[in-house]
C-alpha cells in the first residue's frame, strides 16, 4: 500500500490513477484531481509524503559524489568572498581545524573549498561554523520553513540540533516568535523535502512559508503588528468610555448626582482601569522610551510615555491624597491617559496600513519571478523551487512558462516576451547561444538552457535590490528635517517644563492643574514622526512608481536633482537614433523596378561583411525579396564591390568606383548629395556598365524620439544633441527632431567637457547616453540617464537607468521626479506647519488673548492623525500617471 500525498488515502500502486516523480521519489495518486493539485505545487505535498511510512530514503546526490555509505564524504562548500582572496589558506586552515576533516582544498577560482570529512564525526553545519571566525561565510541556498503551532521553547533546540546534523545544512535557527526555521543549506546535498521531514519527525507540521521574499515577510509582519495594534486600540477605546464618564460627571445624567465620596471611588476605579491601558495598550511607548533613554536618546515614545505617565501619576496622587493639593485642584484626568493612548495607537495602526501600500511597486516586480523550475540533473527531470536552482543547471522551459533564472540557451528555439523587463513589446526570437532572462515569458517554442545567474544575481533580483536601495536612500531635502528631528524631542521636553513653570507662576487658578494640563498637552501634540516620515514615504512611492514605468532611479539625490533639470543633452547614436543603420532609400535611374534592383544589390551585399551591407540585406528581407547567391564577387577596398548576379554584372560603391569603372552618373550625383544632406549614406550602383540608381542607408531615428523631445520642450527644458557626426548630418537630424542646439563633431572623449561647458551656463544638465561610450559624460552631468540595453541595470555611471530604450523614459523620469518632489515638499511643509502652530497653541500662547486652550484629548487626536496624513499624502503619488503610458 502507498499513500496519496494529497488526500492521504492509502491505495495500491497498480491501482493508482497516475504517478509522479518528484525529488527522487515516486508518488501515487488516487484520482486525477489529486494529481492536478500535486502538479500545481508539488512541494506543498512532498513533505507529507516523506513522513509516510513508505517514503524511501532520498538518494545521495550523484553530482557531488555524496554517499552516506562511505566513511569519508567529499563536498564542495561554496565560500562567499573566497574569489576575492589571493589564496585560500585562511579558509583551508579554518576547515582543517574541525575534528573529523581529512583534507580541505580551497579553489579561489570557483570560490569553493573541497572538503573530505568523516560524516560521523562532524557535520556540514560545523564546517560552516568554522568559517565564521576566519571572516568567511558559507554560500548556499537559504530557506525558511514555517512550523505550525510551535509553542514549546525546549523543542526549538532539538529541532535546531537535528537540522544542523542533516548533511548539507550549513546553519539552522528556529524562531518561536515567528514560528519559522531559517536554514542555510547546500541544495546539492539536501532537499527541502528532507528538511521538512526533519521537522515533521518532531511531530510538527512543516509548511512552506508565505514566501521567501522579504517584502512578503514584511507584509506578514505588518499584518501581525496591525492586528496587535488594533486590539490594543479597541481595549483602550472601550476603557475610555467609563473613564470619560467619571471625568465629566457634570454632563452625564444620574452620574452628576453622585456624591463626592462616590465620585472618589469611581475615580479610584478609573485609576485601576487605566493601568492596563497604560501598560498593555500603551506598553510599547514605555518600553520604547526606556530603551531610548538607555541610549541617551528620546523619541516619540518618550513624549507619549511622559505625557500619559505624568497624567496618571498626578491623577492618582490627587485621588489618594486630596489634602496635598489646594482646594479644587485634586481632580484627576484619567481620560487623558485612556483617550490619548487609544488615539495614538489607532494612528499607528492606520499609518502601518498606509505604509504597506507604499511598497506595492516592489511587490509587483517580485511577483514576476517564477516559483519553480524544471531542472534536468543526471538525466532526471525534477521540478524544484527556483531557490534551489544552481549555476550550471540545465533547465527546461515549455511554451507558456516563465524562464526561471538567467542563462544561455543550449537547444531549441522560441520567441520570448521580455516586455516586463525591457519594455520591448514584441517577443524576441531566441536560439541556441542566445541569452534568456529570468522572469520573462516563453511564448512559442520549448528550449533548454544552462543557468548562468541564479538567486540574488539574476537581472530581476538586481533590479529589485537597486530599487529597494534607492527607496531607502536619502534625498538631500530630508537633511534639514533630519537635523531638526535629531534635536526635536529634547527641545519639546524642555518646552513642556518651561510651560509648566510659566503656567504655575503666571497662570490663573487652579495653577497646578493648568500647568500640568498644558505641559502634558505640549508633550502629546509634538509629532516628530510626521517630520521623519515626510521624505522617506514619498521617496518610497515615487521611486517605486518610476520602476513600474521602467525607470530605475538610483538614489533620492538623483530624484531630487532630476526635477531641477533645465537642459537635456542627448547623445545622437543609440539615443535619438536606433544606433544601427537601416535601408532608407532606393532611387532608380533606368527602367528597372526598384524591388528587382534591390534584390540584385542585396544578393551581392550578402557576401559582404560591411556593416552597411547588413542594413541593405535586412531591408531586402523586410520587403520579402528572395535572394540568390552571386556567381562572382570582388571587394575593392576603399571603392566598393564588383559582382555577378543572375548573369548581370553589378558595381556597387562610391563615386570613386563609378569613375574607375567609367560609368556616367548624370543627375544621380545631385540626388546623392541631397541624401547626404539628410544625414544618409548613399551608394551608387550600376548594372551591366550603366548607372542604375542609388541606395541609401542611415542610422534612423527611433519612432518616438521627436514626440519625446517635443514633450521635453513643453516642460520648459532645452534639448541639446551631441554627436561625433559632421555638422551637416547633425543639423539635418536636429531639424527633423526639433532639437534646440547641436554640438557636432565632438570627439567621444570631449563629451564630458561639453557637458561641463553647458553646466558653466548655470543650468542643471542631464546627459542621456548608452552608458558605455558616454560614461564620463554621464558622470559629469548633474543627472546621468543611461538608456539600458535590456536588463543591463548595473550601469555604474548613471543616476537613472531607462530600461526601455526610448527617450520617452527621459520625460517620465523628470515627471516622476517633479511629482515626487512636490509631494515631499507638501509633506515637509505640512509637518513643519503642524508643529510650528501646534506647539505654541498647546503651550497656551493664545490663552491671554483669546482664552483658547487646547485640550490634551484634541492634541492626542491631532498628533495621531498628522502622521497618518503624511503617509496618506505620499500614497496619493500612487495615482501618478506618466504622459507616455508605460504599456
Amino acid at each position: 500500500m502507498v499513500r496519496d500525498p494529497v488526500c492521504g488515502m492509502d491505495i495500491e500502486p497498480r491501482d493508482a490513477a497516475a504517478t509522479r516523480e518528484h525529488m527522487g521519489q515516486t508518488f501515487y495518486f488516487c484520482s486525477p484531481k489529486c494529481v492536478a493539485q500535486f502538479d500545481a505545487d508539488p512541494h506543498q505535498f512532498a513533505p507529507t509524503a516523506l513522513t509516510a511510512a513508505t517514503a524511501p530514503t532520498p538518494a545521495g546526490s550523484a553530482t557531488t559524489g555524496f554517499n552516506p555509505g562511505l566513511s569519508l564524504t567529499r563536498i564542495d562548500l561554496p565560500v562567499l568572498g573566497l574569489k576575492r582572496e589571493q589564496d585560500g589558506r585562511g579558509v583551508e586552515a579554518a576547515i582543517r581545524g574541525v575534528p573529523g576533516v581529512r583534507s580541505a582544498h580551497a579553489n579561489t577560482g570557483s570560490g569553493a573549498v573541497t572538503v573530505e570529512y568523516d560524516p560521523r564525526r562532524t557535520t556540514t553545519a560545523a564546517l560552516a561554523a568554522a568559517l565564521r571566525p576566519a571572516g568567511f561565510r558559507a554560500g548556499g541556498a537559504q530557506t525558511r520553513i514555517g512550523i505550525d503551532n510551535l509553542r514549546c521553547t525546549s523543542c526549538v533546540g532539538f529541532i535546531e540540533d537535528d537540522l544542523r546534523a542533516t548533511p548539507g545544512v550549513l546553519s539552522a535557527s528556529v524562531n518561536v516568535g515567528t514560528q519559522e526555521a531559517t536554514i542555510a543549506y547546500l541544495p546539492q546535498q539536501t532537499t527541502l523535502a528532507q528538511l521538512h521531514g526533519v521537522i515533521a519527525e518532531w511531530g510538527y507540521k512543516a509548511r512552506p512559508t508565505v514566501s521567501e521574499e522579504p517584502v512578503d515577510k514584511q507584509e506578514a509582519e505588518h499584518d501581525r503588528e496591525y492586528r496587535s495594534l488594533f486590539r490594543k486600540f479597541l481595549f483602550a477605546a472601550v476603557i475610555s468610555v467609563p473613564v470619560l464618564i467619571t471625568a465629566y460627571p457634570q454632563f452625564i445624567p444620574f452620574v452628576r448626582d453622585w456624591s463626592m465620596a462616590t465620585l472618589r471611588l469611581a475615580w479610584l476605579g478609573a485609576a485601576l482601569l487605566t493601568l492596563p491601558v497604560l501598560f498593555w495598550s500603551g506598553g510599547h511607548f514605555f518600553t520604547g522610551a526606556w530603551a531610548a533613554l538607555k541610549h541617551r536618546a528620546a523619541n516619540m515614545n518618550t513624549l507619549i510615555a511622559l505625557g500619559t505617565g505624568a497624567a496618571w501619576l498626578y491623577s492618582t496622587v490627587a485621588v489618594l491624597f486630596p489634602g496635598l493639593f489646594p482646594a479644587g485642584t485634586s481632580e484627576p484626568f484619567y481620560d487623558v491617559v485612556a483617550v490619548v493612548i487609544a488615539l495614538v495607537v489607532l494612528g499607528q495602526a492606520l499609518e502601518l496600513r498606509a505604509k504597506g501600500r507604499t511598497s506595492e511597486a516592489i511587490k509587483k516586480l517580485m511577483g514576476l519571478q517564477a516559483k519553480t523550475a524544471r531542472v534536468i540533473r543526471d538525466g532526471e527531470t525534477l521540478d524544484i523551487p527556483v531557490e534551489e536552482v544552481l549555476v550550471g543547471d540545465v533547465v527546461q522551459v515549455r511554451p507558456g512558462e516563465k524562464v526561471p533564472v538567467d542563462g544561455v540557451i543550449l537547444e531549441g528555439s522560441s520567441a520570448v516576451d521580455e516586455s516586463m523587463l525591457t519594455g520591448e513589446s514584441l517577443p524576441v526570437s531566441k536560439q541556441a547561444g542566445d541569452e534568456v532572462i529570468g522572469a520573462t515569458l516563453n511564448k512559442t517554442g520549448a528550449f533548454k538552457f544552462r543557468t548562468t545567474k541564479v538567486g540574488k544575481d539574476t537581472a530581476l533580483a538586481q533590479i529589485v535590490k537597486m530599487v529597494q536601495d534607492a527607496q531607502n536612500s536619502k534625498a538631500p531635502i530630508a537633511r534639514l528635517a533630519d537635523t531638526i528631528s535629531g534635536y526635536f524631542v529634547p527641545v519639546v521636553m524642555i518646552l513642556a517644563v518651561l510651560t509648566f513653570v510659566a503656567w504655575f507662576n503666571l497662570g490663573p487658578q487652579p495653577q497646578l492643574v493648568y500647568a500640568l494640563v498644558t505641559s502634558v498637552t505640549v508633550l502629546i501634540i509634538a509629532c516628530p514622526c510626521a517630520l521623519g516620515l515626510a521624505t522617506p514615504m514619498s521617496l518610497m512611492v515615487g521611486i517605486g512608481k518610476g520602476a513600474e514605468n521602467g525607470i530605475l532611479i538610483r538614489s533620492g539625490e538623483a530624484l531630487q536633482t532630476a526635477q531641477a533639470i533645465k537642459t537635456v543633452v542627448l547623445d545622437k547614436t543609440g539615443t535619438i537614433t536606433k544606433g544601427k543603420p537601416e535601408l532608407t532609400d532606393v532611387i532608380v535611374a533606368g527602367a528597372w523596378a526598384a524591388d528587382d534592383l534591390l534584390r540584385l544589390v542585396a544578393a551581392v551585399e550578402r557576401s559582404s561583411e560591411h556593416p552597411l551591407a547588413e542594413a541593405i540585406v535586412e531591408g531586402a528581407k523586410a520587403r520579402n525579396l528572395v535572394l540568390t547567391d552571386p556567381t562572382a564577387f570582388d571587394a575593392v577596398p576603399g571603392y566598393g564591390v564588383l559582382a555577378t548576379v543572375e548573369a548581370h554584372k553589378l558595381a556597387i560603391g562610391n563615386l570613386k568606383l563609378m569613375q574607375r569603372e567609367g560609368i556616367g552618373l548624370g543627375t544621380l550625383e545631385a540626388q546623392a548629395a541631397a541624401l547626404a544632406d539628410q544625414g544618409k549614406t548613399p551608394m551608387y550602383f550600376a548594372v551591366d556598365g550603366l548607372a542604375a540608381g542609388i541606395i541609401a542607408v542611415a542610422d534612423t531615428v527611433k519612432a518616438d524620439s521627436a514626440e519625446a523631445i517635443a514633450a521635453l520642450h513643453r516642460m520648459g527644458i532645452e534639448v541639446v544633441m551631441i554627436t561625433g557626426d559632421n555638422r551637416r548630418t547633425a543639423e539635418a537630424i536636429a531639424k527633423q527632431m526639433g532639437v534646440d542646439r547641436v554640438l557636432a563633431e565632438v570627439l567621444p572623449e570631449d563629451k564630458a567637457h561639453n557637458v561641463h561647458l553647458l553646466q558653466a551656463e548655470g543650468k542643471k544638465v542631464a546627459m542621456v547616453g548608452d552608458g558605455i561610450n558616454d560614461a564620463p559624460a554621464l558622470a559629469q552631468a548633474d543627472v546621468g540617464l543611461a538608456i539600458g540595453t535590456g536588463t543591463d541595470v548595473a550601469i555604474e555611471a548613471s543616476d537613472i537607468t531607462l530600461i526601455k530604450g526610448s527617450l520617452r523614459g527621459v520625460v517620465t523620469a523628470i515627471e516622476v521626479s517633479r511629482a515626487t518632489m512636490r509631494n515631499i515638499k507638501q509633506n515637509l511643509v505640512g509637518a513643519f506647519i503642524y508643529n510650528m502652530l501646534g506647539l505654541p497653541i498647546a503651550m497656551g500662547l493664545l490663552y491671554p488673548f483669546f482664552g483658547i486652550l487646547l485640550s490634551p484629548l484634541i492634541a492626542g487626536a491631532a498628533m495621531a492623525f498628522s502622521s497618518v496624513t503624511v503617509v496618506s499624502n505620499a500614497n496619493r503619488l500612487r495615482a501618478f500617471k506618466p504622459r507616455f503610458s508605460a504599456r
Partner: protein
Amino acid sequence: MTASQIAVTLTGIALSGFIAWFFWFAPKGQTRAAAGVGGVQEVAVTVKGGYTPDVIVVKAGQPVRLRFTRQESASCSETVLFPDFSRSAKLPEGEEVAVEFTPDKPGEYGFQCQMGMLRGKLIVE
C-alpha cells in the same frame, strides 16, 4: 512670588538644563569593533527601541560587518539605513541580517531607521 513658585521655577530651570545635558552633552559609551581573522570588523547590534550598541568605532579601509538582530515587532525599526554608504537592509523580526561595507574615509557617519526615530553612529578612525 511664593515659595512654591520659586521652588518650581528653580526646579524647572534645573530640569531643562539636565535634559539638554543628558541628551546632547553627556559623553556616550563607545563600542569598538573587533577585527576577525580575515580583517573583517564585526559587531552584533541588537535592535530594540534603539541600537545596542549605538556608537560603534571602526578602522578605515577595513571591511565592516554589522550584524543586526531586531527583537521587536514595532514597524519603525524594520529598516536600517546607512545613508552615507547608500546601504539599507530590511530587518525581519528575530533574524540576523548582516550589513557589510568598507568605510574609506575617517569621520562620523550616522545610521538610523527609516524615519530617523532610532539613531546610531559609526565612527571611522
